[in-house]
């Protein structure tokens, strides 16, 4: 099984705070991290390799510093890593991103499975996985929570949907996106850290990928962000007073008055 895992470098948003004076995101001291959902994708890739043999290739598209996430991937299960980086890729929406990733995966050529995290924590779109599958013209399964079996060019998986679980069978190669329930990612090993430190990570640019310049970056993006603003949170809150008994009483009265109960 040759497995490609797609990773994205994102700001560690749990640390994102809003500066009350300027109403902007505070960026100081925010580390870039591997998109948390992608760590489950990598771990699953490593586990499949351990079960069935093969190779895990980690790829990431981003600015030069996105190499950091690939080093991390090499320390936690990836055998090799490739960075897709070119100023021509900047400003990509999900359509342009999935096109670029697809070009890279086609260049890797020998692959049986592509694994992505279900969504990133910055964009939250969950669109790159399914769009990538169409660009590669191979099957797609979202929200995978368990890989039951891989046999004879087919894979059976369980996935989570709104009201339960589905069992799906897909021929390979395929693209899947995984949810956090699928595994617990391992910590880097000493050997892994040493390997990651010394590894040479090739960078594939627009030229190496042979991309159509009109299909990458801003020119290849169908969508444009025209405005960014902070959500208006209405702080209409009332903290109830008195003994707990009185508060409970008063809450019920208020909800009844509003005909909510």
């Amino acid at each position: 099984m040759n497995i490609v895992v797609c990773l994205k470098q994102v700001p560690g948003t749990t640390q994102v705070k809003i500066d009350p004076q300027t109403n902007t995101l505070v960026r100081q001291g925010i580390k870039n991290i591997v998109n948390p959902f992608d760590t489950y994708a990598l771990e699953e890739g490593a586990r499949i390799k351990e079960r069935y043999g093969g190779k895990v290739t980690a790829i990431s598209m981003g600015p030069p510093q996105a190499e950091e996430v690939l080093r991390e991937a090499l320390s936690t299960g990836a055998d090799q890593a490739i960075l897709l980086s070119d100023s021509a890729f900047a400003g990509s929406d999900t359509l342009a991103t999935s096109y670029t990733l697809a070009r890279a995966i086609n260049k890797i050529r020998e692959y049986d499975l592509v694994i992505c995290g279900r969504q990133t924590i910055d964009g939250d779109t969950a669109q790159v996985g399914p769009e990538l599958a169409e660009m590669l013209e191979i099957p797609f399964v979202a929200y995978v929570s368990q890989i039951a079996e891989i046999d004879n060019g087919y894979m059976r998986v369980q996935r989570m949907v709104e009201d339960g679980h589905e069992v799906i069978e897909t021929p390979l190669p395929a693209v899947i996106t995984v949810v956090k329930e699928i595994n617990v990612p391992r910590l880097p090993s000493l050997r892994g850290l040493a390997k990651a430190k010394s590894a040479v990570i090739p960078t594939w640019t627009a030229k190496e990928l042979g991309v159509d310049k009109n299909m990458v970056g801003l020119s290849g993006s169908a969508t444009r962000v025209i405005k960014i603003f902070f959500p208006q949170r209405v702080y209409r809150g009332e903290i109830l007073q008195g003994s707990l008994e009185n508060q409970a009483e008063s809450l019920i009265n208020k909800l009844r008055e509003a005909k909510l109960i």
Partner: protein
Amino acid sequence: MGIRIDPDKCTGCGDCIAPCPFGLIEIIDEKAHINEGCNLCGACQEACSYDAILIEAAIETAAISDSHRGIWVFAEAKDGNLKSVDYELLSRGRELADTLKTELCAVCFGHNISEVEQLIAYGADKVYLTDDPALASHQEDLYTGELTRLIQEHKPEIVLAGATSLGRSFIPRVAAILKTGLTADCTELEIDTERRLLLQTRPAFGGNIMATIICQTRRPQMATVRPRVFKKNPLAGRKGQIIKVDFNKEGVTSKTKLLDFVEDLTERVKIEDADIIVSGGRGLDKAENFQLLEELAAVMGAALGSSRPPVDDGWIPYSHQVGQTGKTICPKLYIACGISGAVQHLAGMQTSDTIVAINNDPDAPIFEVATYGIVGDLFEVVPMLTEKLKGR
């Protein structure tokens, strides 16, 4: 293409720093410097009094096809029943279609779907209905092929679908085949009448910021829309047409096979359909304590929700999780018990009509979005509420 500072004009005044939603601008050697991550939103340019910030956007050369007209709503059905989000999208779609002076169509796939005429009552002028046993369950390959084919044939200018498990999985595939733009999980839709564009607004960064997005030159403009953000609005005396479409069996084959579906039976009342949700967080301490919330939920006819920690610890199944990686809900009443209110949780519930927070930490962020707050021990307050409601 990109953004740059004209060093001759920049005075280093710093007026551009605060407006940048990403905090990417700093003053280095008395000149503004823009760090990596800019998406050309233009906020800094507006703030600059010296015309020192230049944005060269891509020149849109492709002509917009005038032949694309009409708004489509993908009406999702499960086991022959239409979903609430279908009606919500039609209600908003009706207003958008009237603004654009165009028709509103629903597209529906499935087998033996009941009450299809309701799609007309909620605003559709036409319903394209593909009824075939092969489409009875959510066979995403078939749905992808069929929707793509119909869009190519009829050329709508806008296609909307619910941001459900199904919608967020197969709609991106349709967009990729059509090589058009898709905006995920929108919470607002408006029309720019002058340019005939759909203004699609959605949360990003776990709900910390909102972004308005357009798809300028490609058609259709596609968006998935969060359930329960638009109100259902049935219209009296509407007439429309139901057009039966033959399923093109030869045209598409399903590569993936849906072998089985196991429904999550603990979910008595589905949280996405519930008017009242009683939700628990880490403050519950252990799985057995959900019993307290179940009792309160039972007397109120409410569904049971959860923040992420109880799901991570296996106290309650994932289908109950509210938040960025769970469900986004918008009930009339949301009662948060022992939930601190991390941004990821707020992203999933802050649009609820009325929010009640019960937490013993007066500084918990949940109180910032709460309509009514009780600072106190949930183990005392919740049973008290249950008793009082029982005794009414």
